[in-house]
């Protein structure tokens, strides 16, 4: 159907519209997924820090360095 890669990229003269659409979708979905991974890591970091702190509070002699 396509006459080489150049023809495919050109999209019959509609390249900016077609690739602008698909590009935005790929970019923003990737960004959303990446932000979510970061948010999840932060949630776990907070819980881990909190757990460490409460251990330290209960056992000041053993938990401080862990």
């Amino acid at each position, binding site marked *: *159907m396509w006459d080489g890669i150049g023809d495919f990229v050109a999209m*019959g003269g509609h390249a900016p*519209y*077609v690739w602008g*659409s698909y590009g935005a979708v790929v970019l*923003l979905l990737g960004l959303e997924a990446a932000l*979510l991974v970061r948010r*999840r890591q932060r*949630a776990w970091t907070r*819980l881990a820090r909190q757990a460490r702190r409460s251990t330290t509070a209960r056992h000041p002699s053993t938990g401080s360095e862990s």
Partner: protein
Amino acid sequence: MNRRRIPWLYFTVPRNFYWLVQRLVPLIWAVAAVLAVAGLYVGFFVAPPDYQQGNSYRIMFIHVPTAWMGMFLYALMAVYAVIFLAWRIKMADVMARSLAPTGALMTALSLWTGALWGAPTWGTYWVWDARLTSTLLLLFLFLGYMALYAAIDDREKGARAAALLALIGVINVPVIYFSVEWWHTLHQGMSISPSGGASMAPSMLAALLLGTGACWAYCAAVTLRRAQTELLEREDSTGWTRTVSTDDAPPAPRGVAVPTGRRN
């Protein structure tokens, strides 16, 4: 005590929900990837150019799925809002809140891809016709939901106010869907309708449906992950999260249909 006999409440317990999402999300990502690759292949290498629009119509394979997902996610959000308002199930609120950002993103993408499709087809990026305007309103409803939720300090009150907004705004969804029939719009009518079937070549329909499946799976994966993350953020380190590693959660104890509300 009756709750023990209702298995569908099982996954409203944060720990059980976490466990379920851990197992479901990788599968859903795989489904999304397979459908996306298949959809893009059919959309770009099998479906022929449109006899009127040439190749710009290929935007449809992403425009229509994102638009459908925007409406679908809003309707789903409203359903969770009702469940939350009526039965005060915390998990329903978590789900509704987790759907909003992805719903807003899908709606924004449908507007963006629609504008880029409109430019070569209609000669304009934007018109204030019923379909486009009601879709813009949908975007504002999603954003309004998130803003209202965040603006009220008391989470319970914020959740209820936002749920109410979600519920009121749901009237907009059928308005968007039927706008092309109710008003004279520049936007084209339904290409796929419950009564008329699909008015396009089978390969185009295949690409459209594969794209819709991929979008649906993406939204499911992302919103479930967000709900899971929201649960983590609401917990402190003394609760159920102690028993869960960062990668996994233990299966629930055998023989207990629904934990009775006390933490282990």
